[in-house]
């Protein structure tokens, strides 16, 4: 006999038996089956008890039910807000504005950090500023050079010139005549092996040579005072009263050496005086860009066979020139000579280069063996405050120049008129570069053939 299960009894009690046939069968069975009838009463009690328990936890009868119309209005407002109403739009904007603001702030911070990362430190000078002095040296004016025998020889970078080789040649110092006592205003720059660059009214242009090696940074520690090389016949100049400063700002080997050299040599005002040991009266010619005794002191724009002063040079092969002069010929590494000439007396060789900028570079070299033309060495020269172009006098006792001192000193050249000069000593060879704005930049590229 089939009985009614508990689930069906609960469904029948809950009036959830939807099939009329089944409902009729259940009702008939419960009337006839005592066991099922007993279970029916049991389940009914359970159902009622459970209902009572759930009713005990039900909230208080809600007599405060809101009106349906109020719900409809609220639903309408909600729909308007979500369908693009003004309030809804504001709500949507407000919902996104905060995270968007945060995102923008973070992005801005990252962008600023990234941008600042590429900037150089404020206290670190740029490369341009480090090189600037060499190409922006102001020319010494006669007013500040005249009467001044003081020379400001700024320390060039160690790699600008290499007269260390010269320092090893005792020959170059044998002819060197001791300079005047330290009372003279000649100043030896701290760099011992550099040849004093001529003061240059150089335009602020870069070196015309491509891929010219950059000079190394200045040495951190100032070396002891080194002798300066002065014209041998500049005794008059050494006795001349020192002018105010005389020197200019020192740059990378291109510092102004206004009036350095024998500013009064031969009675010529500083800046126009003869340099390089030229005798009195030759300074004026040198200042005008002539060859002085075979030495070019201003070779700017020299013609290939004729210097600016009209001196005619004779073409010669480099091999023959080396034989005739008895000295090694020096050239600029990376450049091919356009013309090699020799002076009339056969003592100087002049090599002309044409730069990519179409400028003519002259390299004049001569042996520095003639005592008359050798430079004077000042051992303990005043130390130059390059930054401020001030001259400080050092100890009065001046040691005598040593054999190497001449090669460690600087050759002080006169104030140029139109083009810069750069002189250096290689062994017993004095080399003078001219014709370009920054010949010092090329000095380090001087190589013997």
């Amino acid at each position, binding site marked *: 006999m089939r009985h009614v299960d508990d*689930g069906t009894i609960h469904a029948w009690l*809950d009036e959830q038996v939807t099939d009329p046939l089944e409902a009729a069968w259940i009702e008939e069975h419960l009337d006839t089956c005592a066991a099922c009838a007993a279970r029916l009463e049991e389940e009914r009690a359970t159902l009622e008890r459970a209902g009572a328990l*759930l009713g*005990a*936890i039900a*909230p208080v009868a809600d*007599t405060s039910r809101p009106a349906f119309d*109020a*719900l409809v209005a609220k*639903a309408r407002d909600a729909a308007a807000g979500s369908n693009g109403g003004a309030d809804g739009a504001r709500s949507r904007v407000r919902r996104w504005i905060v995270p968007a603001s945060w995102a923008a702030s973070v992005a801005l911070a990252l962008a600023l950090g990234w941008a600042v990362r590429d900037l150089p430190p404020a206290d670190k000078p740029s490369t341009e500023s480090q090189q600037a002095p060499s190409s922006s040296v102001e020319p010494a004016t006669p007013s500040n050079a005249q009467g001044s025998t003081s020379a400001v020889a700024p320390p060039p970078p160690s790699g600008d010139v290499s007269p260390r080789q010269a320092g090893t040649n005792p020959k170059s110092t044998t002819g060197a005549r001791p300079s005047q006592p330290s009372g003279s205003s000649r100043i030896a720059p701290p760099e011992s092996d550099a040849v004093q660059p001529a003061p240059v009214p150089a335009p602020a242009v870069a070196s015309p040579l491509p891929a010219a090696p950059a000079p190394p940074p200045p040495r951190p520690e100032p070396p002891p005072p080194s002798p300066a090389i002065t014209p041998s016949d500049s005794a008059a100049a050494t006795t001349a009263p020192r002018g105010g400063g005389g020197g200019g700002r020192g740059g990378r080997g291109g510092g102004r050496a206004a009036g350095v050299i024998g500013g009064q040599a031969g009675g010529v005002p500083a800046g126009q005086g003869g340099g390089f040991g030229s005798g009195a009266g030759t300074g004026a010619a040198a200042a005008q860009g002539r060859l002085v005794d075979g030495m070019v002191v201003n070779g700017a724009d020299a013609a290939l066979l004729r210097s600016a002063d009209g001196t005619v040079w004779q073409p010669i092969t480099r091999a023959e020139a080396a034989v005739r002069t008895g000295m090694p010929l020096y050239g600029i590494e990376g450049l091919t000579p356009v013309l090699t000439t020799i002076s009339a007396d056969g003592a100087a060789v002049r090599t002309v280069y044409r730069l990519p900028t179409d400028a003519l570079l002259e390299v004049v070299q001569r042996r520095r063996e003639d005592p008359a033309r050798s430079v004077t060495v000042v051992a303990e020269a005043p130390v130059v405050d390059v930054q401020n172009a001030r001259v400080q006098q050092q100890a009065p006792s001046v040691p005598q120049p040593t054999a190497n001192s001449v090669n460690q000193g600087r050759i002080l050249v006169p104030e140029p008129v139109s083009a810069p000069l750069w002189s250096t000593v290689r062994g017993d060879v004095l080399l003078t570069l001219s014709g370009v704005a920054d010949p010092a930049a090329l000095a380090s590229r001087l190589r013997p053939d």
Partner: protein
Amino acid sequence: MSRAAIDWGALYEENYPGLVRYLHSKVWDADRARELAQEVFVRALGNRPDDPRAWLFTVAANLARDEARTVVRRKKHLALLRTEAVSAPPTIDPVAEMEAEQRAATVRRALESLGERDREVLLLRDAGLGYPEIAQRTGLAVSAVGTTLCRARKRLVSAHASLEEAHAARG
């Protein structure tokens, strides 16, 4: 039931108490249960579902589930509508009130001792849903709803009796 044939006013009158009871057994806060019930109806009026009763309890269950996480935010969006009638007067017998609270707490504990499915079936039935709707809501077969409901009721009564006995034993 087609969308056009639904009398939402009648549906509201019929289902609001059961929905409140259902929600109350979920959140155990009468006022909050009423707020949620109103929210459910507001949403229903906005969505106009085809099967409104099942939809109402489904949404109510979801709202109750999220209640714990969204209490603060929910209070900003829900506003208890102004009532038209005066609330029932508070109970003046503190002893009776305390005993009622005690009984409710015991039932609540007994209800919470049930399994999730049993409790859900029990609450849905207590809220007035029929077996087919309970089956739809819970995923059970309609024929299994009676059996599940019978078991849940027995377990609830048994659990409550045990709690009462334990309470009586403690004195």
